[in-house]
């Protein structure tokens, strides 16, 4: 049996693009790219909310930060998206570290509300700081993906850029989750006192996870700005945070594969409902409610994924990750 990693690479880099090419439908390609973008967000939030157990509603802050950074840098200074990925990712990691150090002291519900406040403040800032963000008009005419003279603006280029970044993020999340580091973070989630007694620094671990999650969200934001070509304050409202949270809860808190699955469901189901009218928000709410009530562990629960992953690692199925411990 081939390694799961090989299957995943083949699926995302060969099978899906081939199907999209055969379908010849730009809408399907856009949808596939949107799924991959949401997978980045869900995997990042899953690190924070699932693995580290901090219920956050500030997805749009870092996502929006990345998107606005990309839009304004490329329009004002003509930077390449590669530079922006590095800059926005690093800046968000730094900001996330500072915010994280302060916020991880808050117990569950207070952390959730503080991040909700951050999300609403971010929206208000983007809306009102007109000189920088062009206010409610949004930023138009953002260039597509380009490396020097190499034009990646078509659907295939956009798809491959997103797929490669997405794979990189999933790989990082996988290595952080399925490792001793992941065990330490899970210990900090379950009981800070016990973790401290074991010689871990639970708050530092949580702040680190917060910083990593912020960087991933900002990276997704850069990709979003360049693929959507337009961003406005309405792209970064609290409901979008709730969307990503729903994806993580539906997929299974703490499970990387679950987060990816949840993201795919949460993008594709409302698309299927698009004909019925303006039901997107209602669908998210209903899915979240049904999921927390009927499937509180999600579709792929953390325990099952971890057990599966442990077997795969023991069998050496994940290559170096398995043998090196």
């Amino acid at each position, binding site marked *: 049996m081939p390694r799961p990693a090989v299957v995943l690479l083949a699926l995302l880099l060969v099978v899906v693009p081939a199907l999209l090419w055969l379908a010849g439908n730009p809408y399907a390609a856009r949808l596939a790219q949107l799924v991959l973008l949401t997978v980045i967000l869900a995997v990042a939030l899953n690190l924070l909310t699932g693995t580290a157990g901090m219920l956050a509603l500030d997805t749009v802050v870092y996502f929006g930060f990345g998107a606005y950074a990309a839009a304004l840098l490329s329009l004002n200074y003509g930077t390449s998206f590669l530079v922006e990925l590095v800059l926005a990712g690093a800046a968000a990691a730094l900001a996330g570290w500072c915010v994280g150090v*302060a916020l991880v002291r808050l117990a569950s519900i207070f952390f959730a509300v503080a991040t909700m406040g951050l999300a609403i403040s971010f929206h208000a*800032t983007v809306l009102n700081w007109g000189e920088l963000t062009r206010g409610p008009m949004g930023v138009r005419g953002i260039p597509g993906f380009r490396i020097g003279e190499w034009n990646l603006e078509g659907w295939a280029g956009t798809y491959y850029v997103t797929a490669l970044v997405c794979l990189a993020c999933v790989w990082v999340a996988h290595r952080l989750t399925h490792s001793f580091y992941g065990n330490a973070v899970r210990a900090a989630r379950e009981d800070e006192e016990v973790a401290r007694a074991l010689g871990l620094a639970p708050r530092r671990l949580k702040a680190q996870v917060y910083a990593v999650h912020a960087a991933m969200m900002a990276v997704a934001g850069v990709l979003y700005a360049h693929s959507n070509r337009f961003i406005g304050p309405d792209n970064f409202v609290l409901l979008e945070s709730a969307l990503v949270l729903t994806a993580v809860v539906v997929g299974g808190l703490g499970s990387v594969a679950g987060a990816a699955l949840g993201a795919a469901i949460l993008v594709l189901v409302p698309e299927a409902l698009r004909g019925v009218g303006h039901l997107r928000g209602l669908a998210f709410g209903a899915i979240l409610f049904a999921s927390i009530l009927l499937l509180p562990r999600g579709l792929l629960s953390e325990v099952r994924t971890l057990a599966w992953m442990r077997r795969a690692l023991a069998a050496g199925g994940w290559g170096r990750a398995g043998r090196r411990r």
Partner: protein
Amino acid sequence: MDAFILNQLAIGASVGMTYAVVAIGFTLIYRVLTAVNFAHGEVYTLGAFATLIGAATFKLPLWAVVPLVVATGALAGWGIERAAFRPFRRYADEASLKSRAVREATLLSSLALGIVAREALDIAFKGEWLAIPQDYLLNQPVRLGPVGVSSGELVIGGASLALLAALQWMLMRTRTGVAIRAVAANLVGAQLSGIDINRVVVAVFAVGSVLGALAGMVVSLAYGSVQSYMGLTVVIKAFVAMVIGGLTSLPGAVAAGVLIGVAESVAGIFVPSAWTEMVAYVLLIFTLLFMPRGLFRWGGA
């Protein structure tokens, strides 16, 4: 002090009173269940919409709108408890009732219920700002010495004070109120003396939601318009008031609510009004970080 600043203070205090009334719904629920009802803002919105429907569609007189709003609030509170909180209360002991898993599950379920309610209203009313009919509005100017306010702001202040007094009477003088205080003080002890926890929880949700709905009603009458997202910012400020007031203290929540309202309107003197939204969050973050037990209780967490 000149009249302008006094005016701002009066407006801030009246807005703050609505935060206080909404915050009390939060605080009551937190005291009994240590859980937060994220659908509370939608109760406020529902109260405002009930006012709109009573006034614009059925053309009821104002005194008849009040029972409609009260009924809407009580029904909404009962529904939220039934749908988002009861399914997670599987065991009756204190450890599992107040466990982290239950708290986070109910946080998510009430958040989801809130989203469903908000989006359903948004679809039903097309997301527009809807006007309350002119003759119901409370916007006659009133002069109090150097201060000129509108009658709506006076009514908000007066109604909030009356509601707080009524609540205090209910908690102190009625059987239900005593049961609520008993459960809040000692859950196991209350159960042992024969108090039905489920009934008390329903009562708490109903009372808190009636207060929230009435706050939505007076605000919609004072400012004249209603929209499906109007509860969102109020509920967060009410939550901030609860935290600043020390989580379980009703007087603390009221004082903190007024403080936030006044701080916002004073900030409005110095910065553009769009930015005053942020005042509450700044207050929240500072309180959480430096005074985690609330402004009115000193010491560590």
